[in-house]
């Protein structure tokens, strides 16, 4: 087994174990931190695939932004309300969704007819060029989704602002 396989094994095990930690731990703060660990391990997988840009963006977005917003929301709640979360009424739906995604991705990987080729990290220029020429429509749609979320948040914040004056911020 070469060094890369060993590195992948370590990163994958950490990602999986912390993923299990997210759903099994009783403490929501710990769950959020486990999630961070899991996402950081995925960045490790990206590095092993020579996608350094993607790895850094993963750390920046998921490590630096998503987890922080999660923790921020968590700290605004009262911890004791969640300390006894043992079951979630939506677990069946979640299980179906998770199994569906797992099945679909498994099928794609097993039917893989892609040519295996030498790993080569694209340069930043190539990546940007592709993103703004061949893939510009999906790229713009993705940013539209974010814009909608942003506008929605502003509308929600405004609505509550007028209901109870002075509670904004």
């Amino acid at each position, binding site marked *: 087994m070469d060094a890369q396989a060993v590195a992948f094994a370590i990163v994958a095990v950490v990602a999986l*174990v912390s993923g299990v*930690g997210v759903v099994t731990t009783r403490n929501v*703060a*710990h769950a959020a931190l486990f999630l*961070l660990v899991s996402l950081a391990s995925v960045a490790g997988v990206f*590095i092993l695939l020579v996608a350094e840009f993607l790895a*850094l963006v993963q750390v*920046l977005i998921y490590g630096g*932004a998503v987890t922080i917003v999660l923790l921020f929301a968590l700290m605004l709640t009262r911890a004791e309300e969640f300390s006894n979360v043992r079951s979630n009424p939506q677990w069946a739906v979640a299980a179906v969704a998770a199994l569906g995604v797992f099945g679909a991705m498994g099928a794609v990987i097993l039917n893989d007819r892609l040519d295996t080729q030498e790993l080569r990290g694209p340069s930043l220029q190539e990546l940007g060029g592709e993103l703004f020429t061949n893939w510009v429509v999906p790229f713009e749609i993705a940013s539209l989704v974010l814009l909608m979320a942003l506008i929605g948040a502003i509308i929600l914040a405004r609505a509550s602002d007028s209901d109870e004056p002075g509670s904004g*911020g």
Partner: protein
Amino acid sequence: MILLLALALGVLGILAVVALSVVFGGEDAALLVLRAGLLLTILSVVVLSLTWLERKALGRIQQRIGPMRVGPFGVLQPVADAIKLVVKEDIMPSWVDRPIYWLAPLVVFVPSFLVWVVVPFSGDLVLRDLDLGVLYVLAMQGLTIIGLIMAGWGSANKYGIMGGLRSAAQLISYEIPLLVIAMTVAMLAGTLNLTAISEGQGYQWYILLQPMAFFVFLLAGLAEVGRSPFDIFQAESELVGGPFIEYSGAHWSIFFLAEYMNTFLIAALVTIFFLGGWSGPFLPEVAWFLIKCYAVILLIFWLRGTLPRLRIDQLMAFGWQALVPLSFLNFILVSAVMFYGWPVWVHTGLGLVTLAGAAVFIYTRQASQKARPRVRLVSAREVRRV
């Protein structure tokens, strides 16, 4: 609980290894450890010098003479302080969330140190010259926020939690202008490599082309590392230290070390992005780099000694209503100038005009709107974690 701790430590290790593998692809391991150790030593000395310089500078601003007792002009004062900090009793309250409490200083310190791996001190004095350097620095820098939140949460102290909340809100807001300005600089330079950005400027420093971006970056950077007047999340007079409230001894000193390393990082980034890095006549490159860094540091200390701390709502308003729009405006202007291929002095003109416009606008708004708080003041009881 032990499992959790072990797992978390393992993960920190992995994160470090992952970062190091990006950073030192295929170099001799022993040499690498040696160099990393050397870097840590250099940074510790820099931090010691910064604490001395800060006390001296603040002293002079306040018409005192600062530390004088230990060594000539008190230069050995930081050493005495460091020894005191390390031998102090390390107290851990019984109610803390142990794994988070123990890990928080590491989560702050490890990324703060890893950032320095790609920061060049001169043309060839850098541990690893990474092509995605700017992105790497900002991604790693962003991770330290999690450590602060963990410290606040893990301490299970109401001031700690309020400090954690404030740090999350503040740092994530000020990260946006920081990133956008870094993007603008990268556009001008045509690269994300820190060495190339610095050397591409020659004597046409970006502060001359981008006067407004310089100010926005410096202020957002100050807020990002929680320096006064943006130190609202540790505000000694209201939150008694915020996230660090329950830490003492060696653990507290790790936070302290990380804070000063981050401050120096902002000075180094300002130097590399806007002050031409290590370019300068006669003296060696490293000397010029350090001179410029320390000049920026003195500017930061000067700001600290001069300006009062902002209130939390002023802080958020300044971030979202001044720095974020200015950084986006700058991005658009630079894109336009570069797209149409206008001469470089157009950058300077536009930068000066927007800077003056923003200053006038902010000043008149401040003067007309006499301190009307936009946030509801909440009693400590309401935010208490029971």
